[in-house]
């Protein structure tokens, strides 16, 4: 009985134990939810939102597109900023520092409003989807830059000295010594940041970007079925973030070489 519930760190978990323990946790969660919902005097009306399933799907697709684009762009921005922070050209270093501190120190909501209604307006950029993706990328890029920079700086000096001793150039050092180790270290925080981008994209609804959250809110406005609109919303976001956690765990296992 004990081996079904207890697992000492490091030992592989038996399938039977996995099933039993997950079942108990699921049971507890289900009990809590059914208690919470039984306390509501709520008339459930799923037929109303089934009519609007097309809207949900379109919004979900738009969130996927926006998140994917922001993912790629923010990785590029983060990488470049991390390198700029370590640059020997001082104005570049300070520009990067200013960017990181400003973005990390202000709320995303404020950034979306200012970048769309003030900055984009000044530069004449009309397309709100493009501005939305750029805002998300700049936001996540600042956080990624700091993660990448801390990864780079965690490589011990002895390795850098050895690299210099065998005659590797700066670029070669980055390519063969620093980045493989940094990449491995970065996988957990990186995937965390990616999941965060997916969820933060919901804030773009305030500039009328027709993504998942706005579509669910519109359906709620038409049908007055609040819970029936927002529960699929939660499930939809989970469908996007859970695969990222799974990929993260697979990658971590693959790169688990001894250092």
């Amino acid at each position, binding site marked *: 009985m004990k081996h079904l519930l207890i697992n000492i760190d490091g030992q592989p978990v038996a399938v039977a134990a996995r099933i039993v323990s997950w079942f108990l946790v699921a049971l507890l969660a289900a009990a809590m939810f059914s208690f919470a919902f039984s306390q*509501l*005097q*709520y*008339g459930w009306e799923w037929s109303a939102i089934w009519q609007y399933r097309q809207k949900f799907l379109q919004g979900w697709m738009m969130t996927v597109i926006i998140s994917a684009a922001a993912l790629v762009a923010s990785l590029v921005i983060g990488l470049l900023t991390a390198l700029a922070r370590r640059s020997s050209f001082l104005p570049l270093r300070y520009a990067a520092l200013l960017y990181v501190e400003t973005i990390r120190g202000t709320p995303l909501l404020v950034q979306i409003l200012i970048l769309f*209604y003030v900055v984009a*307006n000044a530069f004449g950029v*009309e397309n*709100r989807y493009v501005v939305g993706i750029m805002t998300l990328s700049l936001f996540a890029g600042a956080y990624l830059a700091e993660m990448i920079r801390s990864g780079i700086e965690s490589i011990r000096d002895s390795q850098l000295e050895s690299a210099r001793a065998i005659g590797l150039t700066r670029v070669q050092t980055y390519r063969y010594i620093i980045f493989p180790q940094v990449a491995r270290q970065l996988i957990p925080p990186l995937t965390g940041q990616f999941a965060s981008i997916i969820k933060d994209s919901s804030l773009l*609804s*305030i*500039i*009328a970007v*027709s993504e998942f959250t*706005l579509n669910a*809110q*519109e359906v*709620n*406005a*038409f049908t*007055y079925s*609040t819970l029936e609109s927002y529960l699929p919303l939660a499930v939809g976001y989970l469908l996007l973030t859970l695969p990222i956690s799974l990929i993260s765990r697979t990658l971590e296992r693959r790169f688990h070489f001894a250092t």
Partner: protein
Amino acid sequence: MRLRGAILLMTFATVLAFTGSATAVEPVKPLIVGMELAYPPFEMTDKAGKPSGVSVEIATELAKSLGRPVVIQNTAFDGLIPALKTGKVDLVISSMTATAERAKSIDFSDPYLSTGLCLLLKKDSSAKNITDLDKAEVKIAVKKGTTGHIYATTRLKKAQILVLDKESAAVLEVSQGKADAFIYDQMSTYQNWQRNKATTKVILEPFQRESWAVGIRKGNETLKNSVNAFIKEFRAKGGFDQLGDRYLKEMKDEFKRLGYPFFL
């Protein structure tokens, strides 16, 4: 030992008796009225942050006639009907139009005000009426959950609809030229135009007439009858006229000059 037990028992019994009698006298339940305090001059906050406006006055008078203290619950407009359905508020007095669709979820009182949907246009728009705007390259701003939103999505199939949370964001979109028009009620459209004369223009002829009513949860017949009785009485003794003079004097005169009917 037995004496201590006896004293304990007596104290316990006394406390029970007094709490029993305390609940026998029920305190008067406040009347919780939901509204979105972002709609001057009907629902707004004064400089001290207290709710004020035409709807707040109506709510206060109504609560007085029912003999209950009033509590104003500031809720986002598209959250008002869910709040009413789940019992978080007892009434909705928020310049809400009575529509057949909404009447499936909640009950409405008799209407207390007539108005209509109008257009706030960007400065260089060439549209003369609502049908001019039903084209693929036209962007129409609406506020989420309002009758303008419903009209745009059901009747304007070709235009692009921009759904925004706040009236101020929608007005900003029009004045910056990002949206061609904003569909909203007549009075607010007039006010928004006044505040943005340089960047917007208006068509104040309503293309859809509407009337505002008080929202009541379904099944609450007694409350509905009391509200209807109050509205009739309040109008008879000139209450609505007084509110119109106090809050809407300028608009009333301007509308009279332009020849639009004003019903409060």
